[in-house]
C-alpha cells in the first residue's frame, strides 16, 4: 500500500463520534484513502462468513441494486467471503466503502482477489486500522476489528454465518450499542444458516429479518418518498429486442438458448444484442451469465 497513512487521534475533530461511544475506543486510528467517509451519516455494515456461498452473492447483488440510488456508505472487514463481496459490489454500484482491517495499516495482502479490491479501495474508499505498520493479524485482533465495524455502522447486515462465525461477535457488539441488526434469513438445514438462526432466536427488538433492501434503508432512516428509480431513464432508447432482453435478464434465470427458440432468432443475433447492451452498461456478464447493472 503506497498511499499516505493518516493518523487520527481521539482528540482530533476528524475522529468519528460513533467510535467514542465504545467502552474501549481506539486511542488513534490509522487511515489510508478518503477520510471524510469516516463521519458519513448513513453507513451500512455488511458482515458474514468467509466461506460465503453463491447465496450471499445473489442476496447482495439484489440489495445493492436498490442501494445504489441512495447516498449510503458501506463498511466491512476486507476478508475473503462476504466482506470482499461487499467491497466489490460497492465498487460496481459506485457506493463509497470502508474497510476496517485487523492487521497493521501497511500490511501487504497477497492473492489475486485482494489485489484489485485493494487498488480500488485506495482510490475510492478508505482503509482503517487500529495498528500501525505491517503488524500481522492475530485471532484477538479480528475481534477488536469487529468492534470498530460495529461502532462505525448505523445498521448491520449479517448475510451468512456459521455456528461460531465471527460475524456473530460483530452482531452482538452492534446490539450492545443499540444498533439495528438485519439478519438475512437462510435455509435452516445449511451450516451457513446456523449463526443466522441463533441471532433470530435472540428475542432482541433491534434484530430484524432483512428480506428487502427497502427494509434496511428504512432502518437507516430513509423515507419511502425519496426512493427514485433511475432504471427507467436508463432503458430508454432501446429497440424492442433489447427492451425484451433487458426484461428477461431482470427477471433472472435468463437462458439465451430458450430465448432464441422462443423468439425464433438465431443465437448469434441475440449474442450481438447482449454484447451491445453490455457496452452500453445496461447489463453485465459474470461467469458467462448476465445480470442487470
Amino acid at each position, binding site marked *: 500500500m503506497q498511499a499516505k497513512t493518516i493518523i487520527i487521534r481521539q482528540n482530533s475533530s476528524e475522529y468519528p463520534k460513533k467510535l467514542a461511544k465504545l467502552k474501549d475506543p481506539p486511542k488513534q486510528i490509522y487511515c489510508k484513502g478518503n477520510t471524510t467517509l469516516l463521519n458519513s451519516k448513513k453507513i451500512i455494515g455488511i458482515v458474514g462468513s*468467509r466461506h460465503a*456461498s453463491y*447465496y450471499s452473492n445473489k442476496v447482495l447483488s439484489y440489495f445493492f441494486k436498490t442501494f445504489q440510488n441512495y447516498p449510503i456508505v458501506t463498511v466491512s472487514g476486507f476478508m*475473503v467471503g462476504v466482506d470482499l463481496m461487499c467491497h466489490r459490489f460497492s465498487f460496481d454500484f459506485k457506493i463509497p466503502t470502508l474497510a476496517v482491517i485487523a492487521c497493521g495499516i501497511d500490511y501487504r495482502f497477497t492473492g489475486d482477489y485482494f489485489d484489485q479490491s485493494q487498488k480500488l479501495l485506495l482510490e475510492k474508499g478508505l482503509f482503517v486500522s487500529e495498528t500501525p505498520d505491517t503488524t500481522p493479524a492475530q485471532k484477538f485482533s479480528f475481534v477488536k476489528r469487529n468492534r470498530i465495524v460495529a461502532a462505525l455502522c448505523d445498521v448491520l447486515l449479517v448475510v451468512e454465518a456459521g455456528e461460531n462465525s465471527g460475524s456473530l461477535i460483530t452482531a452482538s457488539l452492534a446490539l450492545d450499542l443499540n444498533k439495528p441488526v438485519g439478519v438475512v434469513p437462510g435455509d435452516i438445514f445449511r451450516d451457513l444458516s446456523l449463526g443466522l438462526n441463533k441471532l433470530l432466536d435472540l428475542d432482541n427488538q433491534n434484530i430484524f429479518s432483512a428480506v428487502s433492501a427497502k427494509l434496511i434503508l428504512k432502518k437507516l432512516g430513509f423515507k419511502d418518498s425519496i426512493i427514485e428509480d433511475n432504471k427507467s431513464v436508463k432503458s430508454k432508447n432501446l429497440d424492442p429486442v433489447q427492451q425484451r432482453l433487458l426484461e428477461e435478464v431482470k427477471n433472472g434465470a435468463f437462458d439465451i438458448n430458450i430465448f432464441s427458440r422462443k423468439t425464433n432468432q438465431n443465437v448469434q443475433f441475440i449474442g*450481438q*444484442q447482449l*454484447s451491445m447492451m453490455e457496452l452500453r452498461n445496461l447489463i453485465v*456478464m*459474470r461467469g458467462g451469465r448476465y445480470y442487470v447493472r
Partner: protein
Amino acid sequence: MYVKIPLLTFKGLVPIPVTVEINISNRGLPCFDIVGLPGKSVEESKQRVKTALINSNIDFPNKKIVINLAPADVAKDGSYYDLAVAVGIYCANEGINPPANVMFFGELSIDGTINKVKRGYLSYLYCCQNEFKAFVTSTEDCLEIGCSDNSKSETLLAGYKTLANLIVNIKAQTILKSNNNSEFKTHELKPQIAISNENTPEIVIGQEQAKRALLIAAAGKHNLLITGPPGTGKTLLAKMIPAIMPPLTKKESLEIAQILSYKGLSLAGNLKRPFRSPHHTTSIVGMIGGGVSLTPGEVTLAHNGVLFMDEFCEFPRNILESLRQPLQDGYVRISRAAGSYEFPSRFLLVAASNPCPCGYYGDPKVTCKCNENKIKNYRLKLSGPISDRIDLHVIGSRQDANKISAGLNTRQNGKDIPQTEVSFYNEIENMKKSVVLARDFAQSRFKDAKIAANGDLQTTEIKKYCRLSSECNKILNSAANLMNMSTRGYIKTIKISRTIADLEMSQEIKAQHLAEALQYRANREI
C-alpha cells in the same frame, strides 16, 4: 557366403535405413549371432528364424552364422527383422543373391507363417519414396496398407502367407514377376477402403449457443472451453466437432496413417478425424508420449483432430503445463538419453469443466454448495498459461425437458417442419457445410502463407489479415475498458471475430461480428 538386405529402423516417425548383413562361414564353431545393438525382440528372432526355416523344410546350415545390423551404433527393436534374416540365411546358404532393392518385412511364426507387425505402412511408404522395386510382407499387412491411398506407387506390394511360399519364389526369381504365386499383389488392391465414413455422432438438442461456438471453433480452429453443470451434454457437444470439421485432405490422412502405423493401430476404419478423450488420470507420458519403446501420446494421436479433455480442472497441473508446446508449435519434442524425437501434434483442444467443485455454480435452479475460496481454487487451473491458448469460452446450460422435446420435433405428422434460423443447428450437415465454406473463404485470404485457419494466426499476422475499421476499433477499445480485458483477450476477440466474419463470407470485420465475439471471452469472475 555374404549377402545383404535393406531394412529400416525408426527414430520417432522418421525411418532410418538399416542394412542386414548375413555371413555364413565354414570356419569356426557352428553358431548363430546377431550384432549391431539388437533389442530383446531382435535377439529372440534367432529362435523364431531357426525353427521357422526348419519347419518350412528349408536347410538350416550348421555353420558359423553372423548377422550384423548396420549402422551398428543405432539401437534396433521390433520383431519385423525375422523375415529379412530368414531370407538372408537362405540366400547365403544357397549361394544366391537376394533380389536387389526389395524389402522383406515381417515377423515369423515358428511354424513358418508370416505374421502381421506394426509399422508396415510406414516402411512401405519409405520404399515408395525411395524407389524400391518391391515390399514383401504378410498378407494381413498388405491388406492394411491397401487401406491407405498409396496404391499408385511403383513399388510392388507383395504378401505371402508362409515363408515356404516366399522361398519358392525367391528360388524361381519370380518375386518381381506378375506371375508369381504370392497370396497378395498390388493390383489386387481394392480401391480405398480408406477415409472411412465417419460415423455421425448424436446431435445435441438445444444448446444453440454452445453449438454456435462449436461451429466457430471448427471453422477457425479455435481452442474451446465448455463450462457447465453436470448433465448438460458437454461431452456430446465435443464429440460433434470432428463431424463438423472439413473432410480430411490427402496430406492429413497420410499423416494420420503414419501415426497409426507407428503405434500399431489398425488403419482400417481409423482413417478419420481423430477424437481422443484421455481420462484425467492419464500420466504425462501417456499424454505427451515417451516411455521405453517411445510411443506417441494422446496429443500425437489427436493430430489433425480433436483432443477432448473432460473435467479439465481435474487434470494435474504438470499435464496442463506440458500441453503448451504442442499447442504452440504443433509438435512435441521428446528428449531421452537415446536421442530426441519429434511427433506431430496439431490438434484442436476442446476442454470441458464444471463451473465449481459441486458443479452447480450459477445454475438458476439448483443451489451451489461451494464457497468462494473453493471455487477460486478450482478455477485456478483455468487461469494459467494454458487458458491463454483457449480462444473460445462458452457456457452449457441445463435444458428443461419440455424445451428439449420442443427442439426434437423437426418432423411433424410425417412432414418436415420448415427450417428456421434456429433449427439450423439441429443438422450436422448444415454446420459442416458452413465450416467448409468458411475455411475456403479464409484460405483465399491467406493465399500462399502456410496458415491453416484463423486460430493459428500469430500477433504479427493478425495485423496483416484482420484489419479493423475505425468504428470497430472504437467498440473494441470501449469493450476492453469496460470489461477489464487483457491484451491477450483483445487479440483473441479479433481472431474470433475474423472467423465469424468468414462464416458470413464477409471480407471485412463488422461491428456485429465483434459484438458476437465478445460473448466468448474468458469470464472467470464470480
